[in-house]
């Protein structure tokens, strides 16, 4: 829909290329119109599409109470107010950089250490990923991305940079592990299409899979990028959500073990997932390439971290005792919540990809599909939202090549809510199994949706949004799965 005068805007503004206009928002709308609340709205939609870590706030709140000087606004801390409020140096507060570097080392169990001089700030992981693309690639260049992958990469890596994303399909047959062949194939396809491949971006731990990369695969891919002389961007924003073995192997460790051109290695970090602080917009770019650090630092002007927040976090993350306690307790809570959820699913015969990290599970609902197509997945998804009343994320939004997989978040709710969610799933599975059997017997021909509208305008949605519990810009943002099903 063209507004008068819209031709006067850039194509970025007038096209729908930002990746946020998909049907996916129906799930959000359904949640927003009818959000679950244990007492006020017990039959509402339960939000399981939001990868947030809400399990360990008490630890942080407790620390805040005990450390009023960490805030520049309290009587104990206000003497720092003036200097901090005035501080806009894009190098960042030295104590902040030091604290983050130390924290990153601790998260990796001391197996790697990080140089505070290489820490560059960015506007969340969103800003950090985009920034790295601006540094490493030109308009039209390509970046390889293993799929299934975080849907918002379509926006973060591509939208304003003009970089092309080349998905490297991982398959359920080998538990979605990245293989050398698939990398080589993807690289070759790009070459044939005359696309200059500038790098490979991976998420480790993976979103949506919740798995950490094993050493052998990691070494393989580091060799791959080294041979091809392309960059490797490792998005390690879930690194402290590893709640069970195998332990995280970070790229910072791998490069100590094999020969590699370090100028090709870059890390994206954030505190949004590990510490549950997405509102504070703490994104970090860490590069082993001096030129990239220098360029990134200048670019960080476009998304610096509020000095108030830097100051607060510098204080908290320097408290080594607190950090140790937080990391171990958080991991334990994630493990408990994960186990509770997966066991509950197993009881009704639903399997998840075995995972050891992340704030979600990669759930296998292929047996429940009425047909093994993306349309079938969409139908199932609509039922889950509309009837079961759970907002989950369909695999197609993660560019998964096979229909039937769903990402389901478990760390953004308390145990009671989870039990309710499991109860609903249980009920639904029993129902559906019967239905699926019937369908297979009767070979139903018409495929009807469950009454949710097909046409959707994100703009309309933006205008009607008025509640603060709304869109996270970090929810999965898929291309329309219906489009994919048709082509």
């Amino acid at each position: 829909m063209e507004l008068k005068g819209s031709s006067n805007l850039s194509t970025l503004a007038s096209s729908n290329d930002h990746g946020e206009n998909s049907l996916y928002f129906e799930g959000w709308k359904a949640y927003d119109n009818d959000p679950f609340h244990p007492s006020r709205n017990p039959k509402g939609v339960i939000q399981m599409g939001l990868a947030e870590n809400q399990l360990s706030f008490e630890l942080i709140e407790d620390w805040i109470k005990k450390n009023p000087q960490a805030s520049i606004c309290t009587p104990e801390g206000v003497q720092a107010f003036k200097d901090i409020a005035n501080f806009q140096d894009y190098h960042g507060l030295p104590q902040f950089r030091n604290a983050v570097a130390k924290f990153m080392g601790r998260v990796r169990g001391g197996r790697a250490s990080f140089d505070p001089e290489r820490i560059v700030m960015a506007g969340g992981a969103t800003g950090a990923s985009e920034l790295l693309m601006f540094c490493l690639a030109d308009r039209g260049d390509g970046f390889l991305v293993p799929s299934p992958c975080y849907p918002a990469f379509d926006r973060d890596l591509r939208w304003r940079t003009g970089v092309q994303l080349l998905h490297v399909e991982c398959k359920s047959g080998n538990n979605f592990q990245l293989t050398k062949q698939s990398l080589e194939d993807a690289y070759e396809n790009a070459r044939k299409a005359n696309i200059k491949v500038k790098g490979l971006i991976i998420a480790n731990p993976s979103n949506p899979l919740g798995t950490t990369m094993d050493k052998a695969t990691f070494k393989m891919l580091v060799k791959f990028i080294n041979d091809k002389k392309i960059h490797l961007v490792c998005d390690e924003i879930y690194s402290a959500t590893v709640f069970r073995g195998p332990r995280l192997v970070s790229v910072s460790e791998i490069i100590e073990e094999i020969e590699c051109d370090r100028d090709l290695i870059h890390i994206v970090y954030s505190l949004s997932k590990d510490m549950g602080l997405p509102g504070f917009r703490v994104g970090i770019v860490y590069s082993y390439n001096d030129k990239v650090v220098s360029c990134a630092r200048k670019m960080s002007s476009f998304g610096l971290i509020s000095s108030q927040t830097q100051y607060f976090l510098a204080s908290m993350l320097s408290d080594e005792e607190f950090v140790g306690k937080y990391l171990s307790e958080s991991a334990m809570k994630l493990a408990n919540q994960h186990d509770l959820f997966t066991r509950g699913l197993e009881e009704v015969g639903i399997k998840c990809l075995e995972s050891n990290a992340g704030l979600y599970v990669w759930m296998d609902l292929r047996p429940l599909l009425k047909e093994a197509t993306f349309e079938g997945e969409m139908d199932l998804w609509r039922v889950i939202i509309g009837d079961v009343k759970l907002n989950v994320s369909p695999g197609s939004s993660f560019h998964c090549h096979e229909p039937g997989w769903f990402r389901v978040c478990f760390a953004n709710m308390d145990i009671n809510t989870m039990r309710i969610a499991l109860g609903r799933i249980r009920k639904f599975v029993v129902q559906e199994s019967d239905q699926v059997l019937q369908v297979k017997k009767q070979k139903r021909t018409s495929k009807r949706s469950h009454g949710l509208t097909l046409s959707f305008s994100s703009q309309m949605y933006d205008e009607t949004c008025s509640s603060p519990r709304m869109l996270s810009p970090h929810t999965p943002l898929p291309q329309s799965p219906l489009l994919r099903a048709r082509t």
Partner: protein
Amino acid sequence: MNLSSKATCASHGQDSSYFLGWQEYEKNPYDEVRNPDGIIQMGLAENQLSFDLLESWLAENPDAASFRRNGESIFRELALFQDYHGLPAFKNALAKFMAEIRGNKVSFDPRNLVLTAGSTSANEALVFCLAEPGDAFLLPTPYYPGFDRDLKWRTGVEIVPIQCTSSNGFRITKPALEEAYDTARNRNIRVKGILVTNPSNPLGITLSDKELNLLINFVESKEIHLISDEIYSGTVFNSPRFTSVMEILLDRNYVDTEVRNRVHIVYSLSKDLGLPGFRVGAIYSNNPMVVATATKMSSFGLVSSQTQYLLSAMLSDEKFAKNYVVENQKRLKNRHMMLVQGMEDAGISCLESNAGLFSWVDMRHLLESDTFEAEMELWKKIVYDVGLNISPGSSCHCLEPGWFRVCFANMSEETLNLAMQRLKSFVDSIYQSNDSYGFFHNFSVKDSRRRLLKKWVFRLSSSDRGLERDR
């Protein structure tokens, strides 16, 4: 090296003298006690005059200070809040604050406000929304050096200057606009809009109604955009009062028009509230598509929720906010007067200004020759020998050599006095140096005429600067 062209080129603009002076300061910063011979930072447009007001507000509002609302902890809510529509309470308060600064002659709809990480991010995002790589924006010179990075670097957009000169106090004229536009067209560059800073950086003057109307007429006829960077709107300390471009649109009854859809404002709390570290910027537009796109783009640089909350509490305290603006303006006025007087004592005049955190200072008479090389020579002397980091006009793309931007709101009174003393000593030493040096050879003639004139002018009226300005 296989990095992007953005990483390898130099168009980030950070090699300019504006940033180099900054670097020199960092190496040898003045400190009253520890380094009294160090370089005094006068190149940084910061407002450090009114922190005490903020600090006492904090002391009286402990809830806002510690993640609490009505005694209840809201930490969790803030920690999770990453909605790019922004904290409603904050946007409401910000919209009201912006209106207050404009004497409530215009009002702002919070739904048309997009929050960004500083005006740096706001300007870049707006350009991404309005122009393609290779398109151009027209900017009146002299302009803020950071625009070369903010508007051009990652967007690929060009800047074409609208040349303003001292002959009319650097005001924007129709011929200058036309010439800039034609220059772009002759280079086959598509002009997408004009960007002005009002009040102006580095001039420190508010745009006149005449200029604002001129701009609106121009963007209307050429069907292009107008971005008005109004980040210094709260620093107007003298008449004429601040007139926003939005007010002119209202006066002309331009409601629901195409033009109104093409006028956008950039705001920030870095200058008006002296909080550059908090990274609070905003885009205001009546164009729903611009608002929608800019909102999505703000994902790349949202404002920390912790900061949004603190400032929503502060700005919602309307009595405080009003008081702050008035008191702050008083202090700026005094400081400005100090600088101007100090400059006069050194025989240097400033462009008459009524806003901003700096003065646009005329040192043309101190140049060895009417060239930018001479300006650079003078600048180096001032940085290294006099120990003042000031910003040379060339870094602001000024057409005429000899102008410098000198900041006055980022230091104590004592430091400002010291800076003025150093400058006076420097200028006096030049007066005393003889022609055999070959430096400033124009000097003695101009100098004596100037001194005579100056005395005469002062006899007539100490506030009438007309004659001096016409030189």
